[in-house]
């Protein structure tokens, strides 16, 4: 854990009170409803908001404590704002250079060129912001933040102001950044889809407080948290392509615990892929199931059961190897099968959603 953030900030209508330890690498999603304090927390970390009581250490450096308050322009961070934030009097290139010229140790030219290529903005550099689409502007803004070679990247709902089509246009770029750049990212969002696709670590915020914080995979498998990532409960698994069956157009996605057959998407062997398995697509059996059209059957151990909102169903958590899966079962089924924690079960998975094919 290399980011330690503690802030107390009181406004007439709102209080932020958090004490967090966050990992120094990967994408940490700050997730919560609007008004939960996500953006305020990010602004505190950036120094744009000055919390009366605040302590912030980033990778061994104190940015704020009782005696210190590093002003924003002296913090080695990059910030991507929610809405258009490009300077209108400068071209896209001028915007990139604005921060780069001022950074003590800017991104090397070759790596900047790589970022420009990664974000697909090479052809846009001589244009002014009003000649760019919303998605293009946001890509330039992301490149502008990366050009500073920040030691911490803060992103405040960078996709929120875009329509669905533009979101789909940018998400693959963000996934590529995630895979290729070694900068810790704090990513504010209220979109379950973005969390599932991008986050490694999840902080759940509600009414200015942090309800929970932990690795995404284990956070999603927690039964005691109301993490409705979308309409349905489900887990996310990090997998690699472990086998291909070209005759059947199938690939096997391996994770520590087993393999999942899925439709091939043109990914090579060994490629990383993140998948999401919804609880409603998982069923349980207490004996090895007979012949079935369901191709993905794994053996595991029932870990826990928890009530759901609807009185008819339960969420069952099953440990498969090192992974945890969630299954939705009716209470009647659980009773008839006499399901109890610790017992071996067979997990049948009807559908696996590939989240990133980058």
């Amino acid at each position, binding site marked *: 854990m290399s980011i330690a953030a503690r802030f107390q900030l009181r406004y007439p209508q709102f209080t932020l009170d958090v004490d967090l330890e966050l990992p120094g690498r990967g994408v940490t999603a700050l997730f919560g409803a609007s008004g939960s304090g996500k953006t305020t927390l990010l602004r505190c970390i950036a120094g744009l908001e000055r919390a009366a009581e605040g302590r912030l250490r980033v990778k061994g450096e104190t940015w704020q404590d009782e005696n210190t308050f590093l002003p924003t322009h*002296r913090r080695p961070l990059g910030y991507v*704002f929610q809405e258009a*934030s490009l300077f*209108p*009097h400068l071209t896209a290139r001028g915007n990139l250079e604005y921060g780069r010229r*001022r950074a003590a140790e800017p991104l090397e030219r070759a790596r900047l060129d790589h970022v420009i290529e990664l974000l697909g903005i090479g052809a846009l550099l001589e244009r002014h*912001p009003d000649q760019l689409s919303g998605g293009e502007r946001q890509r330039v803004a992301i490149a*502008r933040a990366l050009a500073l070679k920040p030691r911490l990247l803060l992103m405040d709902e960078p996709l929120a102001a875009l329509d669905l089509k533009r979101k789909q246009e940018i998400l693959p770029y963000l996934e590529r950044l995630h895979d290729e750049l070694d900068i810790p990212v704090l990513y504010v969002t209220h979109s379950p889809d973005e969390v599932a696709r991008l986050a490694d670590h999840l902080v759940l915020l509600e009414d200015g407080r942090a309800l929970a914080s932990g690795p995404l995979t284990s956070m999603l498998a927690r039964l005691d948290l109301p993490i409705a990532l979308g309409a349905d409960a489900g887990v996310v698994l990090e997998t690699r392509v472990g086998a291909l069956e070209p005759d059947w157009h199938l690939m096997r996605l391996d994770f520590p615990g087993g393999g999942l057959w899925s439709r091939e998407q043109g990914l090579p062997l060994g490629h990383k892929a993140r998948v999401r398995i919804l609880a409603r697509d998982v069923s349980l059996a207490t004996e090895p199931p007979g012949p079935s059209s369901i191709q993905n059957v794994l053996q595991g151990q029932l870990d826990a059961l928890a009530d759901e909102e609807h009185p008819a169903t339960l969420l069952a958590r099953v440990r498969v190897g090192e992974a945890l899966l969630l299954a939705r079962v009716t209470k009647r089924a659980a009773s008839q099968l006499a399901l109890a924690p610790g017992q071996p079960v067979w997990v049948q998975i009807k559908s696996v959603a590939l989240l990133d094919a980058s």
Partner: protein
Amino acid sequence: MSAADWQALVTTLQLAAVTTLVLLLLGTPLAWWLARTRSRAAVIIEAVVALPLVLPPTVLGFYMLVALGPHGPIGGTLQAMGLPHLAFTFTGLVVASTLYSLPFMVQPLKDAFAAVGERMLDVASTLRASPLDRFFSLVVPLSRRGFLTALTLTFAHTVGEFGVVLMVGGNIPGETRVLSIAIYDHAEALDYASAHVLAGGLLAASFLLLLTIYMVNRRYRMIHL
């Protein structure tokens, strides 16, 4: 145009140029403060800045004359320090004009600064720009039209002032005799021909100045500003 009229023209341009420069230096920080402050005192300052818009120039001129003269707080202090007082001097005119034209510099700048918006400043600070750097690299270019308007209005307004000049400066050729006073003198002496030359020239020059500014401002808007 007579030699005296040429002299009045030169005095007028000098006065307008110096006043505009002084106001640029004083008005910019004042406008910035007014655009950004949350202080309650700001409304009082704003009202004071706007006073010259509604006050008869003779009122302002009268108080300036008293203040700058040998017995006034400013002129008296200067004299006590062994310096000349400022009534009926060019310097006195500059001081009075600065006050008189203050709103013409401050209002457009304040509006332009306010339009830049908090977000842009936040963005610039996350791009490593210090407060002073933010002002010059971001606020000034984004407020170009505001500066152009403020400078033009201040200059033109100073060229056109009459009451304040008459009260504070009097009518000393080469020192405080400006065009508007010269026109008044010509009209008083029923020398309408000379008055026409100066008045018509001033009218045409003012119109051309404003026309140029508005055209430039429109072009700015078309090139991404």
